[in-house]
């Protein structure tokens, strides 16, 4: 596989099953992510990307399957415990606390520093997202979509995670902001963070990711480096084009 060296993966998921009522959403999803990697989960709408991330985060309880993160079994753990284990989550709909200011939103995300993970302070985050620095006391509800997207990432980073789950970070953003977002992901990687993102936008994924999984109908159908995927027209036609 694509992991380099003999280190155990930072995050590994095996045989994940999930149901919504009687609908079988995930049927045996497995993936593994090495420390420092940027891995993208590609797939069409309704393929199971968001549910996979929510299962990892503990927001959806998997019916079956194992999830290991930094040698801890986190399957079925409460979201706050998963977060405190060092995994951050950025939902696709952002879920900013609209009644709280930027600073207060950051405060809500604050957790203790963690060994082996980059440590964030509001000032460091304002350096990463200069826009936010100018609106420290603005209410979350009075920010543009792009600003909210930056804030939701900054807020998750306040937990000093070793890995971050980004659910469709480029969705609904203007092209300029998407470019900023790509830059942000590269900077997070440079900080040593592991990034797992879900995407429909292959172009964006190409710019930021090392490796890709393709999910369809709740199953992983493809795994490979971005270069390999770029070369494989058939796979892209089968699973990604609308």
């Amino acid at each position: 596989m694509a992991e380099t060296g003999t280190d155990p993966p930072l995050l590994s998921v095996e045989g994940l099953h999930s149901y919504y009522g009687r609908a079988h959403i995930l049927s045996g999803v497995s993936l593994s992510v090495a420390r420092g990697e940027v891995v993208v989960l590609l797939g069409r709408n309704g393929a199971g990307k968001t549910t996979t991330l929510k299962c990892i985060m503990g927001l959806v309880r998997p019916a079956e399957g194992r999830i290991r993160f930094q040698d801890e079994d986190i399957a079925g753990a409460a979201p706050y415990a998963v977060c405190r284990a060092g995994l951050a989550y950025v939902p696709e709909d952002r879920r900013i606390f609209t009644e709280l200011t930027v600073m207060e939103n950051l405060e809500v995300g604050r957790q203790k520093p963690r060994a082996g993970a980059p440590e964030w302070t509001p000032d460091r985050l304002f350096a990463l997202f200069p826009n936010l620095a100018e609106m420290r006391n603005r209410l979350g509800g009075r920010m543009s979509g792009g600003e909210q997207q930056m804030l939701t990432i900054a807020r998750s980073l306040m937990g000093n995670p070793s890995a971050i789950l980004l659910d469709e970070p480029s969705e609904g953003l203007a092209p300029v902001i998407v470019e900023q977002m790509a830059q942000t992901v590269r900077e997070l990687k440079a900080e040593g963070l592991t990034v797992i993102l879900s995407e429909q936008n292959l172009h964006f994924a190409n710019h930021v990711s090392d490796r890709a999984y393709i999910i369809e109908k709740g199953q992983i159908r493809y795994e490979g480096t971005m270069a390999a995927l770029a070369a494989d027209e058939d796979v892209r036609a089968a699973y990604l084009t609308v």
Partner: protein
Amino acid sequence: MGFYFTQFLTGLASASSLFLVAAGLSIIFGVTRIVNLAHGSFYMLGAYIAYSIVTSIDVGPVGFWLAVLAAAVAVGLIGVAVEMLLLRRIYHAPEMFQLLATFGVVLVVQDAALAIWGPADKLGPRAPGLDGAVRIFGELVPQYDLAMIVLGPLVLGAIWLLFHKTRWGTLVRAATQDRQMLGALGANQKVLFTSVFFAGAALAGLGGAAQVPREAVSLFTDLNIIAEAFVIVVVGGMGSILGAFLAAVLISELNAFGILIFPQITLVLMFLVMAVILVVRPWGLLGRPEFIARGPGEMPEAPYRPADGRLKLLGLAALLLLVAVPLAGDDFLMVLMVDVLLLALFATSLHFIMGPGGMVSFGHAAYFGLGAYGAAMLTKLLDTPMELAVAGGIAAAAAGAVVFGWFCVRLSGVYFAMLTLAFAQIGWSVVFQWGDVTGGDDGILNVWPAAWASSRIVFYYLTLALCTGAILFMRHLLYAPFGYGLRAGRDSPLRAEAIGIDVRMRQWHGFILAGAMSGLAGSLYAFSKGSVFPDIMAIPQSIDGLMMVLLGGVKTLSGPYVGAAAFHLLEDQISRLEFWRAILGVTILFLVIVFPQGLVGFLRQRLSRDEAAP
């Protein structure tokens, strides 16, 4: 001039305690999404505990306030116990189950208070150091009132600081909006919920304790206070502490001056103001439009399936059993079964708007009561024959539902529930206070059925026929386009509107129909008992209806009858015991924790687990 100013000060002094209770209720609701019916009980406990302390120890001026604080902390700890032992198990249960559970707590606390403090009202001694009066504009104002006037804004300021200057407060405000996301950001909900419950309960306890020198505490304090606190929270805007303060002042001043002008209808006045404000500003004075608070994703409700052969057989067998009841020759059994049938109709009509309609009414007893009073008054005042009087009862209930429903269907969720409660309370207070016409507390006596129906057996069959007919009619409607539209409006109002259903109109019609059916049950009830009393439209009666529906299972169609029967038989058995409220309360708590899906829901789940699901 001086007189009006003192009256104004009295209003302000009363506002403080109400504000404390309402603020606690609002904070707890904001974070846990639980409408805590036991909040009035917390207030009552605070008052009783403070009373016990100040009457058993000789407290000085400082000691008095320490005693008040100690009572608040004690109540906070009781709140923590309730949260950890009970609510923690049911955060994921449907909203109405949580309500039921907190009502179980109300019952247990009522009997505990009865056992500890006895039935007599308790008025505490005057507060040491503040037992005099000062002259303002020539009128005497109790010093303690002035202290109370200071206490309200003081607590308001403290809450504001706590919410805006501490991490805990920031987390609480975040939880009010999106507790799932808060969890994903590393906050431990359990700790947060428990601490919020402590704070909310302690505020209620403080409110109660501080009232001890001003007002006697009685065993009725709990429900009186919870009704007022609902009004204040709704008028001020759910979740807004400042709004609660303004509303408490508004309502208290209204009471203080209303009592000078219309001493008889202060209650009505209060609820009328609430209705007007809610129509003009549906989210209250300082509230914001209700956002969907994110919790665990709730499963969409399964569609109703037409009764299969087995269920039809079961229904037929039950009906035959009911027809055979008089053969037993037991008069008492027949009386009991008439009650069960009427309650089954009452519960089914409530379920009609609650289940398929998605409108949870806290005040359905109003229509039962309107039916009963309509029929009884026609009989007593105009000597109307029974047949016409029953029709009149139905008409009275329907008319009430036309008016109240028009307001209520404009709101949804918790606001709908509270407005229905408010209207029911208006109905109750009119009946209770308008003694010349309704007999007030003494009720209306000697309302007997027509000669042809006066035998127990005939009346039983009449009741059986009418109730069965009405229940089958409502069931039929749910499988007709009317019912489909109602459910569509519940599941997705926007999409229902988009395919041409006027959701609000449909809900209004459903509300009126349910009111009329409840009125039928009520008017028959009047004739079966021969009398009516205000109790039948009071809050506990509405809650009983909710309990029946929830006992049976709100997601099932046959639930209401099973629930009504189970509830009434249970109540009949235990209401003969001394501490029957506590027993009922514990039973409710037990049922809620063990059968969160209701009795019928539980049976169905068992059945479908035993068989391979088709």
